[in-house]
């Protein structure tokens, strides 16, 4: 499991494209928004939590089709499936590696981009917290989507269609937590819901991903 994690991380870091690309995409989306909306600080401050959440979500989505497809092509997925490591654990590890290479950097970078969008000062902490709590769920759900579509020719577009509806609850609670935090409202309910969602997906979805992958590999 540790070896798999290390391998995935090394691949993401050295193969290029995977690690920096998500971050760069996040940056570019955030930069594009003021061009589309207009530069008024109070307007930007109001929409900042939502925009940053959408950006993080899309950046996660963008890196999903590489998550299993590369291993599928070179056959290492077949090796994983026959390895003594349970496929469920392998899927959880894959999701963890995906989170470490996309979710975590996004979480760290979000406050910087928040400055660009005039996010009020208390909002930064809540934004970071909401992303830290929510992005693991995004990675877990994304791994499930990738496992469903791994054997398909036009998997990329289909993957977005399948995964985005599954992202709805996470997005709602995550963006709501960041918004309430920025506006100084009570944050407990969305925070608990978001944490529950993340824990629930971490506990259950690896089984669904492994089941889907077994079918795809058959």
């Amino acid at each position: 499991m540790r070896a798999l994690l290390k391998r995935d991380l090394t691949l993401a870091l050295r193969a290029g494209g995977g690690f920096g690309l998500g971050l760069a995409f996040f940056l570019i989306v955030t930069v594009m928004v003021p061009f589309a909306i207009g530069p008024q600080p109070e307007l930007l401050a109001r929409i900042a939590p939502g925009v940053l959440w959408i950006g993080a979500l899309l950046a996660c989505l963008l890196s999903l089709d590489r998550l299993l497809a590369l291993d599928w092509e070179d056959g290492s997925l077949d090796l994983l499936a026959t390895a003594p490591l349970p496929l469920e654990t392998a899927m959880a590890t894959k999701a963890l590696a995906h989170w470490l290479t996309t979710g975590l950097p996004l979480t760290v970078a979000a406050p910087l981009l928040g400055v660009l969008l005039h996010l009020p000062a208390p909002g930064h902490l809540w934004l970071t917290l909401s992303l830290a709590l929510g992005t693991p769920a995004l990675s877990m759900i994304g791994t499930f989507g990738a496992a469903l579509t791994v054997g398909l020719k036009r998997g990329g577009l289909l993957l977005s269609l399948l995964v985005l509806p599954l992202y709805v609850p996470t997005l709602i609670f995550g963006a709501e937590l960041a918004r309430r935090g920025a506006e100084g409202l009570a944050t407990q309910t969305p925070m608990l819901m978001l944490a529950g969602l993340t824990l629930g997906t971490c506990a259950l979805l690896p089984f669904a991903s492994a089941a889907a992958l077994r079918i795809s590999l058959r």
Partner: protein
Amino acid sequence: MSLWQYANPRKFLATSERVLPALWAGAVLCLLVGLTWGFAFTPDDYRQGSTVKIIYLHVPSALMAINAWLMMLVASLVWLVRRHHVSALAARAAAPVGATMTVIALATGAIWGQPMWGTWWAWDPRLTSFLILFLFYLGYIALWSSIDQPDTAADLTSVLCLVGSVFAILSRYAVNFWNQGLHQGASLSLDKEENVADVFYHPLLICIAGFVLLFLALVLYRTGTEIRARRIRALLLRQGAEV
């Protein structure tokens, strides 16, 4: 005699062919009677005027949109547990019907909402969760149609249906939390007090029965088509043709 004998495609086809004419007739009759009664012979509502009559399309289609997904969920479970092909094909056959019902519910709701709420669309919890349900239908149908191997497709869509159901319910409650509603409460319920007035209630019940029968007829008919398509495929494969 048990329910499982209909897992045999031949038996299923024979029975569904006997039942289908009755279902079609029942559906047409119920819809004709229900809609004519509803549209022509019920009074206008004192506040909503004649727009209230869209209830005869809106409520049954919304009801069937949700129940179609439930039926797909059950059929997917049956497929995953007992590996009956008819069950997987029935789930596949029901998806477009359910998606159409969702669109009818959303469209009739918008047509009613324009004069009543003054807007075609509001980000109300019920409306939003229906839109999300529609997206789930789209993803499910797209996944079915993009996999060539029928058994793989059946397996993967069943897994998607199970996981999707959980997330659809989660979304329903998340959306509730996210925004306050404009939509009125339930028009129908098993305890009498919440129901709409009897004048509207009786034709509505007939319309709902009509939609249920229509749904059953469509699903049985489409499942039969799927079974025959599968047979043709098997025959072609046996002859060594490329499929």
